[in-house]
């Protein structure tokens, strides 16, 4: 049996990442009724998202020129250099997903491999230790 609707996740991603993606999403839904190919839908969506991301990079961003005194410029530069930068302890490439990934891992471990909890505990402690070490090194660099 073939579903009459294209993958919802694909359409949601398309409409989130591609400007004017709603028109293409409508076309994909219409086309899917004639040629129900999930593979084709995903190809279309990924290509459209790639194009949209590339177009964002190509946009010309105007320069924000301000009347800045030399003393202000020096102060701003000093602040920018010396401002402590946040450290991504979860080592996640996407901001805000580190905690979620850990929760998911814990759930999977509890359901399928409860025996590995000790290993997770050790890994957690090692992670905290590494974090503390990174913070200490970072502070020393600033100082």
């Amino acid at each position, binding site marked *: 049996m073939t579903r009459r609707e294209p993958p919802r996740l694909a359409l949601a991603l398309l409409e989130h990442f591609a400007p004017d993606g709603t028109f*293409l999403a409508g*076309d994909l839904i219409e086309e899917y009724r004639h040629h129900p190919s999930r593979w084709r839908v995903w190809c279309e969506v990924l*290509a459209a998202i790639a194009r949209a991301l590339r177009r964002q990079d190509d946009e010309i961003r105007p320069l924000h020129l301000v009347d800045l005194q030399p003393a202000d410029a020096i102060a701003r530069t000093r602040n920018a250099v010396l401002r402590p930068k946040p450290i991504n302890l979860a080592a996640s490439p996407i901001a805000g997903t580190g905690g979620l990934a850990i929760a998911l891992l814990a759930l999977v471990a509890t359901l399928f491999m409860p025996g590995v909890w000790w290993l997770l505990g050790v890994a957690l402690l090692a992670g905290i230790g590494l974090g503390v070490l990174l913070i200490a090194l970072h502070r020393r660099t600033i100082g």
Partner: protein
Amino acid sequence: MPRHLLTDFELMILLAVLRVGDEAYGVQIAREIEATSGRRVLLGAAYAALERLEKNSLVSSSVGDTTPQRGGRAKRIFQVTPRGLRAVRDTREALVAMWRDVPQLKEKLT
């Protein structure tokens, strides 16, 4: 005014929009190209070309009605502008001029 010559895909898109008529939107344009030329077209690629053409004022677009067949999403309907029509003619003239007096092609045509 300098002549605006189109790429082969842009030319196909504009011709498809002209062939479909008043209700030329993504699916119809892609189907028209596939049916007429046998070239398979990604809808996203067609939209990218149409956006480029619209930026150059060769097509204009308007938002059509929403339909249940499209999950309640609207169509984006395209029309060829007079400038676009001129670009199609210019491109055809340029291609025909290139075609002329090529012995290998002449033999095949006769």
